[in-house]
């Protein structure tokens, strides 16, 4: 295979990350059919987060990046958390109180 030869010496550790990502994909696909109630969502989103973390740390090089890049990468997620927290503070508390 010419393609394999062209990438000689470049595969590590990307290939290991890829194998892990594919295994996690197979796992989350299979577990979706196992009745676990609310834990189906917990498991599928948990595995999704793990996959995203692997991509961010290895493929996007955050593992070797300095603090400034890591802060910028987290900034969007912090504001996203604020957006979700305040919205659900509304929706989850509707219909409380008397009457």
């Amino acid at each position, binding site marked *: 295979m010419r393609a394999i030869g062209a*990438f000689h010496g470049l595969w590590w550790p990307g290939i290991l*990350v890829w194998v892990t*990502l594919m295994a996690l994909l197979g796992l989350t696909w299979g577990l979706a*059919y196992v009745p676990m109630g609310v834990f189906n969502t917990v498991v599928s989103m948990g595995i999704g987060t793990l996959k995203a973390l692997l*991509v961010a740390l290895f493929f996007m090089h955050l593992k070797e990046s300095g603090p400034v890049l890591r802060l910028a*990468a987290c*900034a*969007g997620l912090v504001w996203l958390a604020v957006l979700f927290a305040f919205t659900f503070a509304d929706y989850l508390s509707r219909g409380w109180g008397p009457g």
Partner: protein
Amino acid sequence: MSDPQALAEQFDDLGQQRHAAELGMWIFLATEALFFGGLLLGYAVYRHLYPEAWFAAARETEILIGTANTAILLTSSLTMWLAVRAGEEGRRDAVTLALGLTATLGAFFLGLKAYEYYLDWDNSLVPGLRFAFEKADPEHAEIFYYLYFFLTGVHAVHLTVAITAVLVVLFLVRTGRLAYQQSATLTVLGLYWHLVDVVWIFLYPLIYLPGRSQ
């Protein structure tokens, strides 16, 4: 040593230039997280309000295509990462091959996605145009499909931009017009590509997996 072709005049050295480029891209990616976050918030609120309709609707999505597409995008992230690695070592042939593979995998994804949209049309799952849902709560199942088309559509637009960018850089590297080993171009291109992958990593369990165990 600094390569004059690679270093723009406003920077002291290549290290500073690379850092500025990567920081700029990460800030852009943060705004992308919030861009998709708005749609995901809508998804979360409606799923919270109408869980039964959500599970019934999500069960009708094409899980085989969705899973295959996830595998394709994860693999394209590996080839994109290989392009960046090869670039650091100045291996032009490996860079162009890896970028070519990346763009091809992206095109495969879009082709499968287009076929999936065709099936959705055939199954009358296109809200506003052709929607006939016989399972539970069709009115709110329609909201799921509105969000499905917006999320996957906007994602497909991002992927189209990414494929175009990969092809442009591939052309520049191949014709020797880009100092790819010194500049941050490949790294920054890779960051954008991986973001498109990360967005899909979250769309997959939100669109295809809910309600499968019922």
